[in-house]
C-alpha cells in the first residue's frame, strides 16, 4: 500500500506554486491590459501602432511557444530568467494582450454623450478617463477579466514543461514514483477546478462592488 500523505503534500506544494504564478501573472496581465488597451485608443499613432503590434503578436502565438521562446531563446540575448520569472513574464504578456482588447472594447462601449458631457464640463483628458469613463467601463470588463484569469490559471500548467515545480509537474513526479496515474491526475484536475471556481466567485463579488451606485446609468 502506498503512503499517500507525502505525495498529497507534494501536490499541495505544487498548488502553492500554481497560485503564486496565477496571482503574479494576473497582476502583470492587468498592467499590460490597461497599458495596451488604452494605448490602442491613444491620440498618437506611434503608441497605437506599438500597442497593436504587441496585441497581435501575443494573440497570434500560443502561450506554450512564447514560454519556450522566453526560456530558451532569451538567454542567447543575454537575458537569463528563472523558470518562475519566465512563466510570469510569458503568462502576463500573453493574457495581457487578450485583456487589452477587453479594455478597449469596454472603454469604447461607454456612450458618446458621456464624453461630450465631459468636454462640456471642461474636464481634462485624465479626469475624463479617471472619473467618468473608467468607472463605467470597469463593470463591463470584469466578467471577461474573470474568464481571462481562468485562462491564465489553465495556462500555468504549461510551465511544468520548463521544469517549474507547479501542480502538474508534481503530479508527474508522483506518477513516476508510484506508478499510479489516476489519483495524481484526478486530484490536480479537481484542484484546478476548485481554483477556477474560486476565481469566478471572486469576480462575481467584485462585479457587484463595481456596479454599486451605477443603477440607472447602465442600460
Amino acid at each position, binding site marked *: 500500500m502506498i503512503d499517500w500523505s507525502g505525495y498529497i503534500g507534494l501536490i499541495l506544494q505544487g498548488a502553492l506554486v500554481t497560485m503564486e504564478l496565477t496571482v503574479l501573472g494576473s497582476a502583470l496581465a492587468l498592467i499590460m491590459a490597461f497599458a495596451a488597451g488604452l494605448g490602442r485608443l491613444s491620440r498618437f499613432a506611434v503608441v497605437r501602432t506599438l500597442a497593436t503590434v504587441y496585441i497581435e503578436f501575443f494573440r497570434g502565438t500560443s502561450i506554450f511557444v512564447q514560454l519556450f521562446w522566453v526560456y530558451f*531563446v532569451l538567454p542567447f540575448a543575454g537575458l537569463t530568467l528563472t523558470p518562475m520569472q519566465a512563466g510570469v513574464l510569458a503568462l502576463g504578456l500573453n493574457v495581457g494582450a487578450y485583456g487589452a482588447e477587453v479594455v478597449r472594447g469596454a472603454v469604447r462601449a461607454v456612450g458618446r454623450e458621456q464624453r461630450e458631457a465631459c468636454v462640456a464640463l471642461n474636464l481634462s483628458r485624465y479626469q475624463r478617463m479617471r472619473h467618468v469613463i473608467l468607472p463605467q467601463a470597469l463593470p463591463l470588463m470584469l466578467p471577461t477579466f474573470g474568464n481571462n484569469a481562468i485562462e491564465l490559471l489553465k495556462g500555468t500548467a504549461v510551465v511544468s514543461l520548463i521544469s517549474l515545480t507547479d501542480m502538474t509537474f508534481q*503530479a508527474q513526479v508522483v506518477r513516476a514514483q508510484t506508478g499510479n496515474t489516476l489519483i495524481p*491526475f*484526478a486530484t490536480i*484536475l479537481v484542484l484546478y477546478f476548485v481554483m477556477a471556481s474560486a476565481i469566478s466567485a471572486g469576480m462575481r463579488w467584485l462585479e457587484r462592488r463595481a456596479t454599486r451606485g451605477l443603477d440607472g446609468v447602465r442600460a
Partner: protein
Amino acid sequence: MEWDWTFVWQILPTLLQGLKITILATVLGALVAAVFGLVLAIARRSRNAAVSRTVGFFADFIRGTPLLVQLYFIFYVLPDIGIRLSPLVAGVIGLGIHYGTYAAEVYRAGIDNVPRGQWEAARATNLSTRQAWIHVILPQAIPPMIPALANYFIAMFKETPLLSAITVLELMNQAKSVANSSYRYIEPMTLVGVFFLVISLISVVGLRFLENRYARVDER
C-alpha cells in the same frame, strides 16, 4: 550565438513535417469538437434536469481545468483501464473534448438567440418539430455562430503544441528534438513562433471576412 540561415534551411523540411501533423491534429480535433459540442448542447437543453445539470457541470469542469492535464489524463490514465490510444488519437480526443465544451456554448447561444416568435410561428404554420428545426431555427441560428466557431478553431490551432507533451511529433516537438540534438535553440524556436504567427494572422483575415459575411445580422 548568431542567427544562422544555412541551419534554418537545413531544419526547414523537418519542421514542415511537424507542421503537417499540427494541421492534421487541428482539423481532426475541430471535427471531434464540432460533433461533441453539438451533443453537449443538445443534452444541455434536455428537459430532464438531472441530464442537463450533469452535462452543465461536466462542461464547466472541462473548461475550468487545463488542456495539458486533460491530455495527460487521457494518455496516462486510460491505458490503466485497458484503453490504449496512440499519441495522436489521444491528442485529437483531448482537443476535441476541450474545445467541444466551448463549441457547445456557441451552439447554445446561437439557438437561444433565435427569437421565440420564430418557434411560435413554426408551430402556427403546423410545422413538425423536425421541420421547425431544419427549415426555421437552424438556418437562422447557424450563420451567426460561424465567426465564433472559427475563432475557437484558431485558438485550437494555437494550442496544438501542447500535444508535444504526450509525444505527438508535431511542429513544436520536431523543433524541440532538432534543438536538443544540435544545441541550437534560437532558430527552431523562433521558426515555430513565426509559423504560428503567420498562420494565425492569415486566419484572422479569414475570420474578419467571415464576420463581415455572417455576423452582420444583429448589427446595431
